[in-house]
């Protein structure tokens, strides 16, 4: 089965090529969408086969080398794939969620002029993501890494005639590139650092095997991992590089679901997990990751509180949830991080798709009424639960999951992260506190979203009101599947304490991923603090706290948006400055513009008009000018008068003869 590993990325690539080259000719949406979906589905099937095979295989690491890519001296890089539990899980998520989103898109993108283009890009992004996940060395991963960046660019800029879409696409790519800079630096330093120890490699398996050659906790490892982490920050929208992700909502909603929630943005987390052996060696980096993750979780959540655009709320929520994953990585809870990555993929994809369904409906309504109101503004919604029951239910399930209500998937994953943040060797109660507050806000703004959208009075313009239909089957089926996963997915990773209640249900995920993480964790002493490890009471009380927080957040949202809907207005009135800051995303974009973008432009303009044109060309042209000036000056020695010429000669004679007679 492992021999067919290459088929997994290959199928979407074929889809990309077919739709990209011939899509315009095919025209038929069913065929185009069908090909796109089929290809990713085939890929899903192969993934299932491989996953299954791996599950029952005692050998957990399999590599497949397709061809040599670059071969220069001691730099030998292959086009190779790596299947281990981590990548197996990831390909399942990518292809699985990917298939659903492809299916969803057939309905959602119906009637778009660039339908074929969309599917081609979507396939390409799946291809890239699979390359990223499956690559057996850092450079193949980088291909996927940049590939998803490219697809993100293309898909955000899908509505390229919109200025904001173009801007957002460019911003996404450029900010990602800043991350890529880190990735490349890390990669190069790693290659050199290992090379100087005699192992010239960037193969993940070999890196893991030889990581011990580097000094644990030393500068080199810290630099490498920090550089990689910068890359992860860019891709996974962490502070300080998170600004692109909210803007990325300019893309069509399935895109937001697929790459800006389920797959691409989790690449950073995946990359850290992939190189956990290396990261674990540097406590400083781990601490940095944890702090950055916690801060991002908290910070993005605050912004999420005040947004009115349905997708923006979800976008900040994504940033926040990614922060949780990084927090997990930082405290060494790799399994928990990946677990949250998975559950997040389910519920956030579902949420995005649900919001897409809502927008689709709203758009339909407005279109019908020939209105140009914003179909994404939650202030125009309300009471939609009756209009769109399936969307509502699936959305609600996912919201519950993300809020951390027990036995839904988000509860298990988030709770495990918080537990590690509190009780892990590398955890700290402050980290836990940040996470807990973020979780509180998450519950609050998510239910705020649900309440504003689905409950209360319908605030949509009267003319459009009655023309908001429930979406079709291609849209609702993926919603239902994802909602089911969001609800039940958590049982893959039930904590031991709880597992006992479910008939000694094991933590499947931890068990499955153990071959990947255990080694580094053991080696670097990453575990739950021993004095807390067996404190069942503590674990339960933490869990209780989590539940309490979630409940509090939900109640708060209920209180403010259902019970006394005037309250938010009062709140805004009493803290106008605070609200404005939050609403405007703490002015981070403006800050970046002022500090980096404008200064870069200023420097560029200066270098061009000030330096290039004035100084360099000034010297060049100045030299020419001086030479010419001397020439024109000398020219006037040539007066045309015989006497002057004779005089010139005489002076020449006198000087020369005088020099030789007197000077010697």
């Amino acid at each position: 089965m492992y021999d067919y590993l290459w088929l997994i990325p290959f199928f979407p690539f074929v889809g990309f090529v077919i739709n990209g080259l011939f899509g315009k000719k095919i025209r038929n949406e069913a065929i185009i969408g069908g090909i796109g979906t089929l290809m990713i589905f085939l890929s899903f099937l192969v993934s299932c086969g491989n996953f299954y095979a791996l599950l029952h295989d005692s050998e957990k690491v399999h590599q497949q080398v397709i061809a040599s890519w670059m071969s220069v001296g001691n730099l030998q890089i292959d086009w190779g794939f790596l299947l281990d539990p981590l990548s197996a899980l990831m390909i399942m998520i990518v292809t699985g969620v990917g298939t659903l989103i492809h299916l969803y898109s057939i309905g959602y993108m119906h009637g778009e002029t660039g339908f074929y283009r969309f599917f081609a890009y979507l396939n390409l992004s799946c291809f890239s993501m699979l390359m990223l996940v499956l690559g057996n060395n850092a450079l193949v991963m980088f291909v996927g890494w940049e590939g998803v960046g490219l697809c993100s660019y293309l898909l955000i800029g899908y509505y390229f005639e919109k200025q904001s879409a173009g801007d957002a696409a460019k911003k996404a790519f450029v900010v990602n590139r800043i991350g890529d800079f880190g990735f490349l630096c890390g990669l190069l330093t790693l290659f050199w650092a290992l090379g100087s120890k005699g192992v010239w490699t960037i193969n993940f398996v070999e890196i893991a095997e030889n990581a011990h050659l580097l000094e644990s906790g030393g500068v080199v490892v810290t630099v490498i991992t920090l550089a990689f982490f910068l890359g992860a920050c860019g891709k996974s929208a962490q502070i300080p590089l998170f600004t692109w992700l909210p803007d990325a909502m300019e893309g069509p909603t399935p895109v937001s679901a697929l790459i800006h929630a389920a797959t691409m943005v989790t690449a950073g987390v995946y990359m850290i997990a992939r190189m956990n052996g290396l990261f674990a060696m540097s406590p400083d980096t781990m601490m940095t990751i944890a702090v950055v993750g916690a801060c991002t979780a908290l910070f993005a959540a605050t912004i999420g509180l005040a947004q009115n655009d349905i997708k923006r709320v979800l976008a900040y929520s994504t940033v926040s949830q990614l922060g949780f994953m990084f927090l997990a990585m930082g405290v060494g809870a790799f399994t928990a991080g990946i677990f949250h990555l998975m559950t997040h993929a389910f519920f956030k994809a579902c949420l995005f798709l649900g919001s897409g369904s809502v927008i689709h409906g709203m758009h339909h309504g407005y279109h019908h009424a020939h209105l140009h109101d914003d179909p994404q503004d939650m202030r125009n919604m309300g009471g939609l639960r009756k209009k769109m029951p399936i969307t509502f239910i699936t959305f609600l399930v996912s919201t519950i999951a993300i809020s951390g209500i027990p036995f839904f998937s988000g509860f298990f994953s988030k709770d495990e992260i918080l537990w590690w943040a509190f009780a892990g060797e590398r955890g700290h109660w402050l980290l836990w506190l940040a996470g807990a507050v973020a979780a509180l806000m998450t519950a609050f703004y998510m239910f705020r979203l649900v309440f504003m959208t689905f409950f209360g009075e319908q605030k949509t313009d009267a003319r459009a009101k009655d023309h908001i239909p429930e979406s079709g089957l291609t849209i609702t089926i993926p919603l239902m599947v994802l909602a089911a996963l969001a609800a039940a997915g958590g049982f893959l990773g039930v904590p031991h304490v709880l597992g006992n209640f479910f008939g000694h249900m094991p933590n499947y995920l931890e068990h499955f991923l153990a071959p990947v993480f255990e080694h580094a964790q053991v080696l670097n002493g990453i575990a739950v603090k021993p004095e807390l490890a067996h404190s069942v009471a503590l674990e339960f009380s933490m869990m209780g706290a989590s539940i309490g927080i979630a409940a509090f957040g939900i109640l708060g949202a209920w209180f403010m948006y259902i019970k006394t809907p005037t309250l938010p207005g009062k709140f805004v009135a009493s803290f106008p400055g605070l609200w404005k800051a939050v609403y405007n995303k703490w002015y981070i974009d403006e800050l970046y513009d002022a500090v980096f973008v404008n200064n870069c432009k200023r420097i560029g303009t200066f270098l061009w008009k000030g330096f290039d044109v004035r100084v360099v060309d000034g010297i060049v042209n100045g030299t020419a000018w001086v030479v010419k000036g001397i020439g024109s000056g000398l020219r006037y020695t040539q007066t045309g008068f015989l006497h002057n010429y004779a005089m010139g000669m005489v002076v020449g004679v006198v000087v020369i003869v005088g020099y030789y007679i007197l000077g010697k």
Partner: protein
Amino acid sequence: MIGVYHYLILSAIIFSIGTFGVLTRKNAIVIFMCIELMLNSVNLTFIALSRHLQNMDGQIFVFFVMTVAAAEAAVGLALMIAFYRNRESIDTDDFNMLKW
């Protein structure tokens, strides 16, 4: 006793006078005469040296110089006449069409 050096110094003085004349006079004919003066001072040098060295080469040279000077005079005067025909002047300040 008048020795070779006296002749040499005299000729040097004459040469200088000629040179000075070339530099200061404006009339083409006068300039030409100054040049002749220079050539003749050279002739004087040659003859003095020839005498001093007991060697005929210098005197032969003088003949050549004189001949050449005559030829030059012919050509020079012809050129001056041509110029005079066009400009009605042989003032060297009028040689001013070609410059810079």
